[in-house]
């Protein structure tokens, strides 16, 4: 298991290859990658991501450990950036490996649902005409009921 909370960019391809190379006993590898979209339709200059150093790493580790137990995963990877990101940049990724595809998919969705609402990150959209904190969505909180 590897958890990284960082300001530096990461290379999705390199991370995916390194992850897959380490888990050849697993038949299924799922990755999820979040990219900064220009939600304000051309007006987004940057996405500023604030986090709670210390708690962030603990919260993600705890989420990943719960996922690894629940689905007997061969491995889990979580990378999440903070700081200022531009549209098109990669915000974060998760990867899961399991013997069966259903488990790898479910675990990746579980990780994403919990990272979204239970890891202490806050996003702020910085646009030409001002900046605004991204509001948590009711459907993201509701997504946790599934688990």
């Amino acid at each position, binding site marked *: 298991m590897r958890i990284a909370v960082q300001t530096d960019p990461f290379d999705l391809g390199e991370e995916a290859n390194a992850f897959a190379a380490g888990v050849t006993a697993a038949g299924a590898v799922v990755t999820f990658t979040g990219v900064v979209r220009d939600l304000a339709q051309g007006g987004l200059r940057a996405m500023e991501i604030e986090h*709670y150093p*210390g708690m962030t790493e603990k*919260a993600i580790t705890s989420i990943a450990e719960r996922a690894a137990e629940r689905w007997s995963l061969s491995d889990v990877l979580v990378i999440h950036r903070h700081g200022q990101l531009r549209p098109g940049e990669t915000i974060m990724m998760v990867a899961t490996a399991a013997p069966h595809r259903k488990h790898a998919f479910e675990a990746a969705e579980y990780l994403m649902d919990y*990272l979204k*609402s*239970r890891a202490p990150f806050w*996003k702020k959209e910085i646009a030409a005409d001002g900046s605004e904190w991204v*509001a948590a969505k009711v459907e993201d909180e509701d997504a946790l009921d599934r688990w």
Partner: protein
Amino acid sequence: MDVLYFAWVRERIGLPRERVETGAATVADLVSELSAREDRYAAAFADLSALRVALDQELSDFDAPLAGVREVAFFPPMTGG
């Protein structure tokens, strides 16, 4: 204890963390104490349903006791991922 603020709570109160000497028994008591201090605190804590609290870096509740807690953090619902 150390009290930390994140995102718009930090912006509204105007600082990321401060040292608070308090005898507050619960998080709610601490919130009342801080809110009574100045308008910026009262404004930040006006709607507790829009806030979350962590005690020593674990998510908690506003009615949780503060005994033994070293670090309290207030912030809006998280938007990671």
